[in-house]
């Protein structure tokens, strides 16, 4: 069978009954419903065919078949109450798989948010979720924080703390490392006192070492220490105050403790407090008098005890 219209021409020259191409959908609908007249030029020849097909739908079975099937179907309808549509095994497996995947993703993201995953997994998860616009700790920052903390607790910090609590401090000796003596001003002892502003919060900067006896700060120290050498108070005022630490640093190191840079020099037996000035402004409570007062009891390394730190200045002062 082909739909080629040219095949419509009978090979034996039989009368052509019309072209089907002129037949519309409505004509076909009428034909299929049995409403086409037998003398229809286009479709009349098919009226007997359709009639034959329609007659084929008459039930062939007898009454017994009908009664049995009606009873069986009615009983089946009564027995089959409303039941949930059966779920195929495949559909159930798919649902379980999707649920498991969702749970895994949720758990992973949750652990990543808590930063409790192993570093590679944490980094991968942070990267993947970051693509969706959600920022998670990637582990690198934590690693950096850990390094920072180790630095703080390491030789420098320990030095600072030791310095603060060291004998020199306890004896009111000339500055120890603890001093933020940077206030080197305090180191010199003179303007340090002037620089000390009672209204300013005391700041303790753990510093490991510094020039001795007001000597010019070590070249490696920052301008703050140099400034402190020149003019502790004045320069210190111009220097950024160590109290203006970023919040995150404050959260890590305490509100008044400045992290010590890595490049520090071992604490000399005597310091003028300019040590460590590299990180602190000279305006700290490096006042000589106050430092002297607190010098004996200073535990310079302790946070918040700016006076202790400034003790060195007092030492010189």
């Amino acid at each position, binding site marked *: *069978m082909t739909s080629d219209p040219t095949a*419509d021409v*009978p090979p034996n020259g039989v009368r052509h009954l019309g072209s089907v191409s002129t037949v519309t959908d409505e004509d*076909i609908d009428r034909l299929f419903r049995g409403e086409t007249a037998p003398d229809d030029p286009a479709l009349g020849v*098919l009226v*007997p065919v359709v009639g034959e*097909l329609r007659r084929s739908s008459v*039930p062939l079975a007898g009454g017994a078949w009908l009664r049995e099937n009606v009873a069986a*179907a009615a009983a089946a*309808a009564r027995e089959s109450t409303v039941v949930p549509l059966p779920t195929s095994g495949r559909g159930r497996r798919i649902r379980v798989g999707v649920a498991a995947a969702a749970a895994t993703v949720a758990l992973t993201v949750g652990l990543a948010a808590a930063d409790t995953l192993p570093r590679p997994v944490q980094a991968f998860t942070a990267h993947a979720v970051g693509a969706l616009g959600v920022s998670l700790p990637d582990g690198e920052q934590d690693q950096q924080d850990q390094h920072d903390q180790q630095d703080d607790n390491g030789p420098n910090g320990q030095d600072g703390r030791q310095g603060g609590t060291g004998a020199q401090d306890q004896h009111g000796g000339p500055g120890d490392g603890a001093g933020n003596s940077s206030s080197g001003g305090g180191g010199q002892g003179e303007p340090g006192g002037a620089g000390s502003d009672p209204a300013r919060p005391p700041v303790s900067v753990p510093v490991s070492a510094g020039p001795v006896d007001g000597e010019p700060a070590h070249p490696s120290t920052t301008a703050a220490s140099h400034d402190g050498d020149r003019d502790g108070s004045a320069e210190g005022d111009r220097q950024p105050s160590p109290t203006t630490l970023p919040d995150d640093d404050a959260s890590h190191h305490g509100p008044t403790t400045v992290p010590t840079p890595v490049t520090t020099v071992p604490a000399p037996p005597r310091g003028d407090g300019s040590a460590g000035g590299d990180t602190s402004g000279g305006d700290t409570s490096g006042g000589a008098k106050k430092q002297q007062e607190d010098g004996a009891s200073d535990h310079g390394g302790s946070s918040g005890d700016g006076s202790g730190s400034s003790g060195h200045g007092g030492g010189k002062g």
Partner: protein
Amino acid sequence: MDGFLREIRAGDERSWARLFDQLAGPVAGYLRLRGAAEPEDLTSEVFLRVARGVHAFEGSEDQFRSWVFTIAHNLVLDERRTRSRRPVTDRREGPNDDADRGATRAAAPAADIEALSRLDQEQRVEALVHDLTPDQRDVVLLRIVADLPVQSVAEILGKEPNAIRQLQHRAVEALRRDAQRREAERRDAPRPDREASVDQESFGDP
């Protein structure tokens, strides 16, 4: 439809008898012409599935009819698939069918004459749609025997309505060409002893 459907769901036998009266014939005819080996058994299966699934059905009367024929269509496809896996001898295609039928006709009581004439009718109808492609046959049977609109046929067969219209156009063309061929054969070889009607001459024994 709602009340009728409620009674069907409740298992009211009178309603089910009415449903069988309306649909059993078309369903059986459709299954038969689609080549089901046991159309009556398959019709019973169709209605059993209807009974089991009618609680979940929602829709109009036309949709209900379409749903029943969807079940029938799927069942006959399943049966054909199953048959294709195991070789089965078709009783209507056996080499001794004519001889068997003659012997049966000779020995048949009067009550079975009707059944035998039905068998002849089946074969005549099968011959009508024999030359159609499977898709064209599906469309013609669902449109004529199941008396379904184009949209429902499209849903059952999983095709677009335009595709169904195209298929039925081609099927009509094929049927018409076959009718012309039969008419030509009748003219070329007329039988004087045969005074049957045009219908019988056109669609007699193949």
